[in-house]
């Protein structure tokens, strides 16, 4: 199995991109060139300075250091919410597609309804219930994107369910749980994997969009989404302030996309003919 991973060029490439990001996320606090929270009122919004290769933000804080320290909360938000959306969506979609009947109608209607709810309203409601904060942001983004996963899982389940290997498993007397987990799930993963990479990007952007509700990482602690959001006002003064975090996000997303593609290939035994 391991050899399959190593032989897959796309996989290797995406790991080469992602690994450093993860390492930096882990050791970030020890390698930041500056205190990312320290204000330098004399040096605000400089594009690049000696000692500040990526420049400074509106508080004169070092953008590089903030990018580095921002990885961890950004990943937590992105992965947390994507995981939440993925699991709920998957569960709903599988149930609806597999059991059909009332469950299907009820679930898919609910999914449609949640889909046409603007995220900002959902966000405000969650804030109203539980207040702001990272965990609530994760819940919100999870709710916003779960319907997407549900839809995909639903339609793929419908397709896969018709296949004879599912029926053959059923005809052996397998329980529904076994069929769902053993037969259907592994075979509907690949469209979901694409959606995962899209959701990761979207959740970080949504974080920046919702930060005005006080959601997400509370300033002054940095996160990519928050930096992207904050930079909005300063595009004319220091365009790189907006570009750096977006670029970091872009590269990460590219790597995640590729990782998704390669995982799909690797997990598909058909593509590893002997």
């Amino acid at each position, binding site marked *: 199995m391991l050899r399959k991973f190593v*032989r897959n060029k796309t996989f290797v490439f995406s790991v080469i991109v992602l690994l450093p990001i993860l390492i930096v996320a882990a050791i970030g606090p020890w390698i930041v060139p500056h205190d990312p929270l320290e204000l330098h009122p004399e040096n605000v919004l400089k594009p690049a300075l000696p000692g500040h290769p990526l420049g400074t933000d509106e508080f004169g804080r070092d953008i590089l250091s903030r990018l580095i320290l921002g990885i961890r909360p950004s990943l937590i938000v992105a992965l947390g919410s994507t995981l939440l959306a993925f699991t709920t969506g998957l569960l709903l979609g599988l149930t609806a597609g597999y059991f059909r009947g009332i469950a299907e109608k009820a679930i898919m209607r609910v999914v449609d309804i949640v889909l046409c709810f603007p995220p900002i309203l959902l966000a405000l409601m969650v804030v109203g219930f539980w207040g702001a904060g990272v965990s609530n942001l994760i819940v919100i983004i999870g709710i916003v994107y779960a319907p997407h996963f549900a839809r995909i899982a639903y339609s793929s389940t419908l397709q896969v369910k018709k296949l004879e290997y599912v029926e053959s498993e059923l005809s052996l007397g397998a329980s529904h749980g076994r069929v769902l987990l053993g037969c259907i799930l592994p075979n509907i993963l690949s469209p979901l994997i694409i959606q995962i990479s899209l959701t990761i990007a979207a959740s970080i952007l949504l974080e920046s969009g919702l930060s005005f509700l006080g959601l997400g990482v509370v300033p002054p602690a940095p996160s990519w989404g928050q930096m992207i959001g904050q930079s909005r006002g300063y595009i004319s003064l220091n365009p790189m302030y907006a570009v750096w975090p977006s670029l970091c996000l872009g590269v990460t997303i590219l790597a995640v996309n590729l990782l998704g593609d390669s995982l799909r290939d690797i997990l598909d035994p058909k593509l*590893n*003919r*002997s």
Partner: protein
Amino acid sequence: MNMSDALLEIRNLTTQFRTDKGTFPAIAGVHFTINKGEIVCIVGESGSGKTVASLSAMQLLPPAGQIASGEIWFEGRDLTKLSKKQLSQIRGKSMSMIFQDPMMALDPVFTCGSQIVEAIRLHESVSRSAAYKRAVELLDHVGIAHPSRVMEAYPHELSGGMCQRIMIAMALSCSPKLLIADEPTTALDVTVQAQILELLKRIRSETGMSIMLITHDLGVVAEMADRVAVMYAGKVMEEGDVRSIFRNPRHPYTQGLIRSIPQPGQRGGKLHSIAGNVPGIGSMPTGCRFHPRCADATDACRRSEPDLIETEEGCKARCWKAHPSWEEEEAG
């Protein structure tokens, strides 16, 4: 038969596939000829390279496959040397192909009629309405009851037999010289199969078209073929006219195949079958490819591979037993 009658001549064709574990030949040194007006059936174990041979002839191999060596002569030209453009002028015009699963082989979002019209207008500069009329005639010709209604139908609205007939109509639209049919009736039931085989024979006798027919069903072979080529593990094992193949098969593999046919009146009895399995594409045995499954295998078979040699007029076999030297070795 005379060499000048040859329409398609495949010479020493080797087609290989790139896989993760390396490049392997799916067919190796395949050699056969189809004469004008002849129906040649290709039979053989599944995975023996029948489809690959036909796709090579059409130059329609999947991206992983490529012709490593050999020549494909068709009407005096070597198809392996032609450009894409030249090929697309030949394909559909002089040689056409029908595939196994007719439902999957038609574009689902265009009407059947427009797909036939497209085929006609690709190769002949006729007006749309003239092409349409031709298409209706063709459909009538292949035995479709309401041709003008079917012209407007989408493939999913038709049964498998009808789709297959539309495929045939399409393949025949420019009166090709050669029709390659890869298991054209496997998905159909016997009554429809009978209709289609009847149709092919009729067209052959009307137009003198040659047909290369790939099938598993030896009944179909017996009924259709003028000549038969038997493939095993990427090689032609035996080639000859249909009677000698059925009556007097030389190669042990062909013999095994013929003996495997269920005979009426021996219900429940043991059917003959060839022991063992086809070797995988990456693990060909040395010597004769069939020797691990051959009851008569000798050391010679294990050592080296026999050539395809003429056994009698128009028949060839790839077997040491058919080799002139066999008797001597037997004796010695």
